[in-house]
Structures are given as C-alpha cells and as structure tokens.
C-alpha cells in the first residue's frame, strides 16, 4: 500500500489489475523456461488490460518484465509483440519517480539512520542506483549512513539460498557485518527478496536493525517527534 500512497500523493490515479500472480522470475532463474513462459503470458495478459505505465516496486520483477520476457517469448508470434509493448511501459518504482515523474522529493519525512543496499537486479539489470539515493537524500529528517560494499550481493539468489545454503549464509554474514558497521538503524532496499533475506539474517542475529522497502520509507510523512 505504501507504493499506492506515494503515487497518489503525486496526484496519480493508481489501478491494480486483478489476477496478478507472479512474473515467473523464480522459475526462469531455476531453468524452467516452459513454466516461466506460462507465467509470462499470464502476466502479460493481465497487464495488457490497460495502457497506463506499469510501476513495479521490485527490481528483479521489473527486470524480468523489461528484459527477459522478450527473449523468453521470442518465438511466440502473438506474445513476442505483446511482451515488447508491456516492457516498453514498465518501470521500476524509483526510476518511475525520479526519471518519469521528474522528482526526487515525494514529500517523505521520517527520523532514522538509513543505509541503502543496492539490490542486484535493479542495480545491474536496470541500472537503478542514482534514483533510490536521490529519493532517500530528499527524505526530511533522515540521516543517510554510507554502507560499505552496498552493491555486493546479499546471497539470496532465489533457490540459490536453499540449494547452496551455506555459501548463501556466508555471503549474508558479510552483508550483515557491513550493515552493522554502518551505524544505521534501518536498511533500505528496493527488492522484496533481498529484504526477506537480510531481515531474516538480522533477526537470527538478534540485531535491532530494521529492513524496509524504499516505498515504506517514502510513504511516511509524519516525522514529528
């Protein structure tokens, strides 16, 4: 709902097409291409019901729709074109705010010491780096804590974290060490999967550092203390 709040605050009318499930990225990353195609077609159908810009609050899902659908459905006469059309109006949330709406200041205000973890798919798939930083810089009252190795993967990687759990845990440890060193009380992410991973690790450590999606931070406006 935070995404909706932020977008509506900018005067936009938000629709949420019913029937959305999953973009298919987990199946795609695991090598299940037929299964990923089925979900891609379904998602394209759902998203094709309107021609408004599509805003995705997750870098990995956005990357899937923007970059992978086209190659996945290359040989599908009907869906190849549809995929292209959908990709052409899909934006990752922070890119939409900063690059399309042209504003880094969405009227957010919250107290806190924020560190930004650059989620891989957004960062390298979509080149999302500048936008979240600009948005966070504009949050009233917040202090930004630089995070060392902010662009190093946290080790989630979908099934990677379950198939090779020990390597994944070692990568997560490194990430959590950097987070704790940063002095932040909140880690801000742009992808739900990194949030799941990092927050699960912080909880297990008994850390008090919280993980928040950037939309939750941007939605907050009541910072009076």
């Amino acid at each position, binding site marked *: *709902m935070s995404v*909706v*709040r932020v977008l*509506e*605050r900018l005067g936009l009318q938000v629709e*949420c097409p*019913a*029937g*959305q*499930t*999953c973009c*298919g990225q*987990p*199946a795609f*990353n*695991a*090598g*299940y*291409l037929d*299964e990923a195609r*089925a*979900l891609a*077609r*379904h998602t394209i159908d759902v998203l094709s019901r309107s021609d408004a810009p599509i805003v995705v609050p997750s870098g990995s899902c956005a990357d899937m729709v923007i970059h992978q659908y086209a190659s996945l459905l290359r040989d599908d006469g009907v869906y190849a074109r549809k995929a292209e059309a959908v990709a052409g109006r899909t934006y990752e949330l922070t890119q939409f705010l900063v690059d399309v709406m042209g504003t880094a200041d969405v*009227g957010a*205000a919250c107290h806190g010491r924020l560190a930004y973890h650059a989620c*891989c*798919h957004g960062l*390298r*798939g979509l080149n999302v780096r500048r936008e979240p930083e600009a948005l966070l810089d504009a949050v009233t009252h917040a202090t930004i804590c630089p995070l060392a190795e902010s662009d*190093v*993967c946290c*080790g*989630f*990687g*979908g099934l*990677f*974290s*379950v*198939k*090779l*759990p*020990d*390597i*994944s*845990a*070692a*990568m*997560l440890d*490194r990430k959590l060490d950097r987070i704790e060193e940063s002095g932040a009380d909140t880690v801000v992410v742009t992808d739900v999967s990194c949030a*799941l*991973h990092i*927050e*699960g*690790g912080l*909880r*297990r450590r008994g850390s008090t550092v919280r993980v928040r999606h950037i939309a939750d931070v941007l939605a907050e*406006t*009541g*910072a009076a203390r």
Partner: protein
Amino acid sequence: MNVDERPFAQRTAEALADAHLRHTLRTVTTAILGYRRAGLGRLPASDGWRDHARRIRAHTLANLDRYLDQFAGAVEARGGHVHYAATAAEAVAYVRDLAIARGVRLAVKGKSMVTEEIDLNGHLERAGIRVVETDLGEYIVQLADDRPSHIVMPIMHMTRHQVADLFKRKIGATEEDVADIASMTQLARRVLREEFVNADMGISGCNFAVAETGSITTCTNEGNGRLTTTMPRIHVAMMGMERIVPTVADLGVMLQVLARSATGQNLTVYTNVVNGPRPREGDRAEGDGPDEFHVVIVDNGRSRVLASGQAEILYCIRCGACLNTCPVFHQIGGHAYGSVYPGPIGSVLTPAMHGMEKFDDLPQASTLCGACRDVCPVRIDIPRMLLELRAKGVAQGKSPLWVTAGIRAFVFAGVRPGLFRTAGALAARASRMLARGGWIRRLPGHLSAWTRSRDFPALAATSFQERWEDAKTAGVRDNRENPAR
C-alpha cells in the same frame, strides 16, 4: 582434463571452513578490484575500449578458421611449426614425442592455463621428462603438488608461512632464506636460474596469437616467462584455439583491457612477443631465441563450445576480473570449482567444454547478481549463459525432484489467480502457525536449509490484492494521513 572428482558440496564445505582462505579472498579481491577501477579510470573512454575489444573477439571467433590458417601460414613462413590438436591427448602426445625425439630431459615452463587443462606436466613426467614451472606462483603450486586456485594469482589460497615451510621441506631452504617474502623470492630465483641454464625445452602459454604476423604473446609480471621463451633451444607455445587476434593493432587493444582488468596495470610488465625461431642467416642473425619454434593449437572441446549457444564464453581473455568480483568466489575460492577455470567463467566454460555430466552443480553456484558481467572487459553475459546451462540441466532431468514439483505446483497456481489466492492464504495460515512473534525459526522439509542461518517471516494474513479491493469498496485509499509538509 585435470578435475577434482569430489562432490561440489564437499569442496565448498572445505573452503567455507577455511577462515584464512576466506579472509585472504576478501582482502585480495577487494584490493585488486580497486586497482582495476583505477586502471580503467586512467584509460580515457574505457567503456569504448571494452566495446571495441568485444567487437574484435566477436569478429575473430566468427572467422576463426580463416585467422588460424593465416596465423599458421605466418608461423611456418618464419620457420616455425604449427600443430592442431583436437584433443588433450593429441596435444600432450605432440609435445611428449617432440621432447623424446630431441632428447629433452628438462623442460622449463611458463604459466599457462591450457597446459593445466590437459595435464601436460603429468604426462611429460610419466615419460621421464622433468618439468619445472618458472612462474613463482606456479612453481610453488608445483612444489606443493597442489593446483592453481586463481587464473591470475595461482597461489592466492596459500599463506607465506605455508610457502616458507614448503621451501624448507622441498628445496632445503634455511631460516634465513625464508625470513621474508623478498628472501624467499631470491631463493626461488637462484634455484630457477640453474634450471633455465640446463633446460632443453621451454614451454609457454599464449595470451594472444596474432594472425597477420604469426606472433605469440605472453603477459606476465615476472621475467621468468621471457627466459622460458628465449633460453632453451626448443620453444613450444601452447595456445587454446580461441586465443587469436587478427592484427597487431587488435593486439594493442586487447593488451590494454587485459592488464587493466586483471591487475589494474596499464600494461603487464613483461609483455613478450615471440616471432618464431631465432633467424640464423646473414644480417637477420640474432643473439637469442630458440632454434626450434612450435605452436600447439589446442581444441579440447572448444569447437563444441563454438558451435553451441555458449560460444560467447570463448571471448574470454583470462583476466580473472569475474573471479575477483564474484561474491560466491569470495566465499569458496578457486579449488571449490573443481577444475582449471574457477569462478563465474569456469561455471560456464567447464560444463560447456566438458559436458554437464560431472559439472551440473557449477551453473547453480551463482546468485545471478550480474557483477561478473559488469566487470568483464569483453562484456561476456555470463549470467545469461548460466541461465541457459540451468535450462539445459532441467531439460536433461538434472534438477532435483522437489524443485521440479515445487515450481510446477507454483506455476499451476500462478496461471489460475483464484487458486493462487487460495494457496497463498493457506500458505499464510500455515506460516503463522509455525511462527512465534511473527518469525519462523525452522521451516519444514527442503526449506529448512533457509532457516539453518536465518529466520523466515510469517506471511501477512491478508494479501495485497485483498487489501486493495477492501480499500476500493470502502471508497478509501488508505491515504488519509495528513502529510507533514
């Protein structure tokens, strides 16, 4: 090929238990990545150079037959010999037979990945020919009866104390000899100089071969590589079939991006270009260089890769940048990859060259974070190829049953929104039953791997879609807070 047959899980478990290894990996790779950034930063428009380098590689690989022919013609015109080896066995046999025919008892060898690939040392030694590695790192690996763990820094996994012990055990070093790194280097230098003087054959690798001139180029930061190619009377250069560039101008481009990507240097200190045997007649007579010059062009599965969907991996120029940047490599190091080429490049190259049978774990050893693609000097899309190999594994029935069942069930529901919603609600309820204080400390079944080291959150009682619809029917958009602006 030289491979570690033990299961991937066992190799990674050993690496993860090695605190020193992981510390070294982290500090060294971080430093090297810094040098790389600085090195590329000194090259104006470095991204343009990388694009250009990629075009050269793409063009060369698309016309490989032609350039190999041109190269072979140029080598032979200068009095050298070229041998195509389709397999590792053919490559080894050529060098072994040549050595035996010429009465070679000692060969000195420069650093070369392709010779590791075909286990040249082992085969020559079994034929009674002693081989001495001359690159310091490789020399240490050889003394330790170990294998290189990094393409550029072969003994990244060892401590100086391990090396000191090794020198005392194997080459009679005194305490004084191993007092510090400089004295250890001096000792190795004294030992190796003797070998150079006595060697009948020098074996080198080949970073790049130049088609128009018939030259081979080796890039090292030690002078020993150059002694290997110039001192012995016979020189054998071993090159992977793909390691060719059309012209000297192209070589210039590749050398720039190679050195900067590998170590951050503008140019590797000893960038050595060999143009065949020492000319003997008249004005062209030269004082150094071998009497005989042989180039062995090794295929060993490369043709198969070239014809496959993974041809792009042959663009690789072995800079090692993808290893240095890979967060998985940072944790497990090179040996865990089980073959000569570690890290992201190895995870593609090894199964692509040698089949998925033994190496189907390697394409899984990545979070697909894309860091390798970002640093690659020739912009190889490694994550895409890992995905293709994973898909190949699935098509070959290599994927575990629980993964297949899970994905199929998920997708079955995913294209049926009503079912998806019901399943989601059930999963949410189950997750809340397992949770305490909103978090689960132990998930059931295969998912328990997750909760070995992290908590898992209970899923929300109501889905976003439900909340969205409630908000709509209530005519409220949950947007009533008073903005404190």
